[in-house]
């Protein structure tokens, strides 16, 4: 997992401006598999984000796969980034993830606090899924 985080950090080092960084993130978001619209309900909605974010997860063979969508292009890109690191991992790996790359790539310094909150809420929800499955 740390290898993936390092890869992301290296990728981002290639960009000069944050617009370029976001261009990249937005493209990642657009490549996310389509989220089943039937799951776009309050049950799957993450609270604490200003935008609408839906998150679902499946668990098999000891690994959690996440599915997510957002009406915000920025947020969807950030989700895609998180998924790169967290999706397909074991519950323990997800729980242990420190996600230091978020700070290293400088995602947070460009945007106001509510944004950071959104990202935190997403991480929290992903870890909650992991916790539920690690208890099994």
């Amino acid at each position, binding site marked *: 997992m740390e290898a993936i985080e390092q890869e992301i950090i290296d990728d981002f080092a290639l960009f000069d401006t944050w*617009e370029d960084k976001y261009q990249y993130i937005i493209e990642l978001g657009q490549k996310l598999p389509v989220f089943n619209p039937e799951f776009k309900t309050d049950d799957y909605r993450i609270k604490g984000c200003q935008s609408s974010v839906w998150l679902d997860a499946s668990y098999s063979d000891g690994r959690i796969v996440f599915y997510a969508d957002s009406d915000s292009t920025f947020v969807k890109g950030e989700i895609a980034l998180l998924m790169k690191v967290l999706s397909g991992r074991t519950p323990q790996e997800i729980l242990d993830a420190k996600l230091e790359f978020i700070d290293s790539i400088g995602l947070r310094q460009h*945007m106001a606090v509510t944004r950071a909150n959104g990202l935190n809420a997403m991480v929290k929800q992903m870890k909650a899924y992991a916790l539920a499955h690690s208890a099994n």
Partner: protein
Amino acid sequence: MNAFDPGRIRADFPILSERPYGKPLIYFDNAASSQKPKSVIDAITEYYSHSNANIHRGVHYLSQKASEAYDAVRVALKDFLNAPSEDEIVFVRGTTEAVNLVAATFGRTHVQAGDEVLISAMEHHSNIVPWQMLCEEKGAKLRVIPIDDHGQLRLDQVDNLITERTRIVSLVHVSNSLGTINPVKEVIRLAHAKGVPVFVDGAQSTAHFQVDVQDLDADFFAFSGHKILGPTGIGVLYGKRALLESMPPYQGGGEMIRSVSFERTTYNDIPLRFEAGTPNIAGVIALGEALRYWESIDRDTAVQWENTLLAHATVALQGISGVQLIGTAAEKASVLSFVIDEVNALDAGMYLDTKGIAVRTGHHCTEPVMHRFGIPGTIRASFMFYNTLEEIDEFVNHLHGAIRLLRPLNA
């Protein structure tokens, strides 16, 4: 000089030289809250440094000084609204509290089961929910004046909607999400013809043009200090004397009583009857300073300048493909709401924020307006006389940048 000189005016507002993310601040969220001139900010420090004491109770020097300054603002507000008497000026926390006060006092005594309260489809939540709560409590009905596709009040429907069961009409003067200036004077005339009083939510009007409550013949008129260059936590409810005098108190406590015993309490006269407890003295005094600022500028020229800003921005936005203005009323004040095809409003707002540009995105506490137009929210730029044409050009430039970045690639 025929053009307004925002350069000179801007120097009065310290916050306008802030640099969010190292970029010059472009503050286009004035409908949410205006910025404050230095004189208003200083008045707060000055009060706490040299006059602070509780009012109307002390015999001592400071209390007298604070009481005089406080009472003088009520008189200044009477002039600001051209109210007949300062007794008709009630201090509240803001527009929201004013609506709640009238709903809980006038509303509770006059609205019964089967009665109706009439509002419009473009009300702020603060002019919906208190009436809804009242109607629920009483078994009364909330009725709504519809709006047209330009975001204008359907004036042709008003007369029909005021029935023999209507107990009060409550209407926004200027819509915070559409910018529409409502024909409140005409609505008041129609309502009065049937003996129905009208509450006017002036949260957005007082900042943009002179209001004369006698000319409007409004029964109640409310606004918030923080939207007219004053501090937060202080607002004004104007009410016609006969109505205020007929109303029971809102909250109980000190100041609002004449005498108290365990058997019986008698209430104070208006306006103190509605002002229980130690008021926001510093807020009132700073609001008085804001009124002084309004007097120091030429209001007609300020209004013209804001209209110039609005017209300039409107034309510029209409020139961007995929931008759709929400709220295209013939009469508008300083609010520009819009959506962009395939670009989420929040994303656009976040992008602009990174450029130091403050706009508001979302439903602006007017969810029913958003439902009316079938959209989740808008991007809203709202102007004040200290904004400039250059700021608008910069904003439009960055909007192009936002669209370039955010529009789906192969659309």
